[in-house]
């Protein structure tokens, strides 16, 4: 996605003025002053009025805005849940500062999806200020979720096809992730995206899977023991060693990651629940390190080992046929696919002891 020119970011389409949002008048939402002089006109200007969603968007869309603070897009609570879980309360203020500096740019407002490109990718009006009911996928969703989800879904990794839902179905993100799922979160899902209901669940569309009339017996055999992605995803991105700091030269926050690579690891489910009862799920390596936030203080993650560094993942590169589902013994007995002890760094063994597969499912006799 090419960055927009500065003028292009703020060019309003005259058609917008005839829409219900346009007829409200610029100053009603953006503030500023009625003046032909640019600087005077911009005095008190609010570039993104939807930062105050209750006042602006909530006037008409109250039923959506009311639940939005619980949305992970708004709260970024998932980061805090995980980082704090590896720490202790005394360290929370320092970690809060770190997350404010390095994570908050991912915070999303209504306007970041429905009117503009997200600020984290430079901002700019999507379509002359028209309010897009369904945000355009590549300019909003994968503009932020591009490194992993976007690259996987669109097939940007060489030699790895894009997700079948995109290749064959031309489905955009909203085809599965409904507005109501994106606008709020309920219960445990408001703390971490893998702690609540599966939204979406594959079975929402593929209802026949595992039922008596399912013609694919492997679905019934594996049942709820194996997450769908274990058989139907292919290689996906993992990262190692992210460290954050503030630049001495510019005062801007920056990060450094030690490595990014494609991986495929079947492991034990770190968070089994009624909603995700699987024994086996896919795991990706997340870039947390004991010293990730060292710039903000010593030993800020003393409980680093409480959570795995190989963690639950749901890759967005689903295929009907994959190397591991070609036959029973493509997976059974194939230790290369499983997160076994030898594949975990010695310093991360303790953190991952709950997800390491000690006994790879045995080869099935008499079956190719």
């Amino acid at each position: 996605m090419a960055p927009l020119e500065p003028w292009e970011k703020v060019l309003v389409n005259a058609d917008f003025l005839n829409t219900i949002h346009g007829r409200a008048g610029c100053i009603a939402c953006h503030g500023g002053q009625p003046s032909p002089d640019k600087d005077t006109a911009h005095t008190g200007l609010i570039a993104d009025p939807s930062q105050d969603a209750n006042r602006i968007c909530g006037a008409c869309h109250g039923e959506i805005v009311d639940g939005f603070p619980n949305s992970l897009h708004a709260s970024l609570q998932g980061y805090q849940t995980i980082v704090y879980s590896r720490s202790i309360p005394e360290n929370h203020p320092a970690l809060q500062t770190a997350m404010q500096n390095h994570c908050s740019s991912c915070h999303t407002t209504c306007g970041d999806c429905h009117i503009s490109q997200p600020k984290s990718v430079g901002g700019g009006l999507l379509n002359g200020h028209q309010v897009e009911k369904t945000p355009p996928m590549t300019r909003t969703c994968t503009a932020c979720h591009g490194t992993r989800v976007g690259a996987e879904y669109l097939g940007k990794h060489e030699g790895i096809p894009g997700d079948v839902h995109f290749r064959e179905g031309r489905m955009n993100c909203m085809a599965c992730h409904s507005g109501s799922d994106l606008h709020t979160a309920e219960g445990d899902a408001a703390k971490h995206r893998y702690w609540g209901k599966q939204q979406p669940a594959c079975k929402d569309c593929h209802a026949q899977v595992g039922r008596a009339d399912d013609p694919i017996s492997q679905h019934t055999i594996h049942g709820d023991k194996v997450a769908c992605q274990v058989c139907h995803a292919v290689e996906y991105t993992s990262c190692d060693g992210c460290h954050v700091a503030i630049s001495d030269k510019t005062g801007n926050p920056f990060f450094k990651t030690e490595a990014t690579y494609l991986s495929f690891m079947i492991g034990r489910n770190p968070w089994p629940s009624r909603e995700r009862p699987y024994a086996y799920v896919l795991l990706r390596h997340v870039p947390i390190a004991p010293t990730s936030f060292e710039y903000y203080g010593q030993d800020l993650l003393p409980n680093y080992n409480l959570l795995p560094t190989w963690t639950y993942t749901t890759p967005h590169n689903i295929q009907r046929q994959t190397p591991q589902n070609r036959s029973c013994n493509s997976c059974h007995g194939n230790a290369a696919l499983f997160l076994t002890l030898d594949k975990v760094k010695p310093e991360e063994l303790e953190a991952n002891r709950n997800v390491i597969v000690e006994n790879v499912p045995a080869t099935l006799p008499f079956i190719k």
Partner: protein
Amino acid sequence: MRRMLKVIVVLGLGMFLGACAAQANPTPTAVPTPTLPAAVFTPQSSVDYCVSCHTDKDTLVQTAKPEEKAPSESEGVG
């Protein structure tokens, strides 16, 4: 004495009947209703300066400040 009693009864009856008499309704007075201005969508002045500038590509090209972005020191994939 009997006359005195008659006078008291007549006076009391008169006061009672006077209290029961119908109250006269006050005549309503016409109050002028203020005329509300017709609802008009904003433009807060006759010229909408915001719109005239932000819908004119040439004006924006001339007036938009170039963005000075410090080179990022981040390394690796975010």
